[in-house]
């Protein structure tokens, strides 16, 4: 669990700088504009950068550069060790000590924020939308894509609702296709805008070779789905959207956040998915993330995972027995019955993942997704206990 932001002493930045941190050895070989490379120093007087003869953007040093004169950007006295490391893409802002990591080499969960705007208002939203003019995020994504390691296995795009970018989303997808053709791109969307067939057609015409859309369907029952997402007709739009995407051969993952309003009809939802969304490449049933709107709507959404397992078991096996690929996300293994555990994934992003004192002595810890850092006593399942040999 390493945060994505830290503070440091930052000098020499004008406006905003999105740069890649690299050791000088790697930077010399990298096919990146030197002016977008920030050289990582191991020792204060470690490297003689003049010799390389390249106009590097500047230097980073975890400790104190003291009087070392920096030509260009200088970042030192990094508050949280480890937050910034070679390979990372960071954002620096003029007159700010904040260092934000936009891409972390080796992380399992690099995600780019597309926008904070959203056309839904889900009751358990972990990242509540804001109606702000954040078009600059498109440029930030484009810059980030150009600095991500070319051999990165996966990259996510989230929001807000990424499809609200309209044609700018095509530009982002095209850039990813050109620069990161081997990187799996996973986009979280509510799919509603794909009800516009022409929009779905344009997005799929980018032909990104490794793109998956993660789209939620919360219930087979429109009223329940619309209640969860707090938007009338959302279910209709998402369902039409899913079929439009399927028509244009998009890869689709159905995401079901399991919560009080929909747990009762989970079996019916599985049946619905099998009958009507058979084209989905993957179905994920997900535990709640206790942050954002979820905290505010605790009473409406909370149900102990231990009380969901019968319904989950029905739904998961219904789909898996019929050849669909199914996963469980965000459920610690001690809350999951033994027969369902093969479906569990280590789904919680590394930067918000943690374990509890209860986990001491658990034999499954290495395979477990653990907990969201934002979890507190209210959100703790009664089933949590260390799993030992016999359970």
């Amino acid at each position, binding site marked *: 669990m390493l945060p994505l932001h830290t503070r440091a002493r930052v000098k020499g930045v004008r406006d905003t700088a999105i740069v890649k941190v690299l050791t000088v050895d790697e930077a010399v070989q990298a096919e990146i504009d030197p002016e*977008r490379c920030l050289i990582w120093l191991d020792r204060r007087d470690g490297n003689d950068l003049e010799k390389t003869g390249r*106009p590097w953007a500047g230097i980073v040093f975890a400790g104190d550069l003291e009087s070392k004169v920096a030509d260009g950007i200088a970042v030192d006295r990094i508050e949280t060790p480890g937050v910034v490391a070679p390979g990372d893409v960071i954002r620096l802002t003029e007159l700010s000590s904040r260092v934000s990591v936009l891409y972390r080499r080796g992380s399992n969960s690099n995600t780019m924020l597309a926008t904070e705007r959203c056309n839904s208002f889900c009751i358990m939203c972990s990242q509540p939308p804001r109606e702000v003019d954040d078009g600059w995020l498109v440029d930030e994504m*484009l810059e980030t894509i150009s600095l991500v390691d070319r051999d990165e296995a996966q990259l996510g795009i989230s929001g807000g609702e990424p499809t609200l970018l309209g044609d700018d989303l095509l530009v982002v997808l*095209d850039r990813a296709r050109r620069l990161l053709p081997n990187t799996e791109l996973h986009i979280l969307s509510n799919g509603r805008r794909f009800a516009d067939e*022409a929009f779905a057609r344009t997005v799929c015409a980018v032909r990104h070779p490794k793109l998956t859309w993660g789209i939620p369907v919360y219930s087979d029952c429109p009223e329940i789905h619309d209640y969860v997402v707090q938007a009338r007709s959302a279910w209709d739009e998402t369902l039409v959207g899913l079929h439009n995407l399927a028509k244009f051969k998009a890869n689709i993952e159905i995401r079901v956040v399991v919560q009080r309003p929909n747990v009762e009809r989970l079996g019916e939802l599985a049946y619905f998915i099998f009958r009507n969304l058979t084209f989905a490449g993957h179905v994920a049933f997900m535990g709640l993330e206790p942050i954002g709107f979820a905290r505010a709507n605790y009473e409406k959404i909370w149900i102990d995972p231990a009380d969901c397992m019968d319904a989950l078991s029905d739904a998961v096996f219904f789909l898996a027995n019929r050849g669909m690929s199914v996963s469980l996300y965000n459920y610690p293994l001690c809350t999951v019955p033994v027969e369902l555990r093969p479906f569990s994934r280590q789904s919680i992003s590394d930067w918000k993942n943690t374990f509890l004192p209860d986990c001491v002595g658990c034999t499954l810890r290495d395979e477990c997704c653990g907990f969201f850092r934002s979890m507190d006593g209210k959100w703790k399942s009664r089933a949590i206990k260390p799993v030992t040999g016999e359970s």
Partner: protein
Amino acid sequence: MTWRGRVWRLLGWPALAAGGMTTAALGATVAAATGDGLEAPGSPDSGSVLLPNTLNATAEDQYAAHRSHSSHRSHRSHRSSSGGVRQAPSTPAPQPQYQSPPSNQAPSVIPRTTPRIERTIPKPTPQDVSRMVIRVQAALMRRGFYNGDIDGLLGPKTRAALRAFQQTEGIPQTGRMDIATLTRLGISIP
């Protein structure tokens, strides 16, 4: 004043061109302007800079002549983000060790980029052009003129689609992203 005159005055309202209209609204404006054969009073011929429309009315025809990337100014000089320090003017500007701004004092010691007051619009970078091509391809696809890949490349298929669209619109079939075409596609020039 006739209703056409009134509509025309509304469309020519400079605040609309300058302000932050959404693409959809702009598209609607374009549709209104072109949909029922509304002719602009004293409309200049093609190739002119000013179009009888709020959309792109002040833009230059910078995307029309696009042929290759070679003539473009490097991306670097166009970027606002990093590396500016390295390109400081040869007369060394004072580089103070800035700590924190005094609360009620103008931060005159901070070296700022000089505000760019340019009469000419900078040439688009390859990235800008590719972005514009993507918008054009998407707009042509939505209108049923294009069914190739959306790839940001102005290839034969895209040019053919542009010509087909231009023919339908009754404007010169240049196969290029000129202002008349962009405007009719509802695309504003950044």
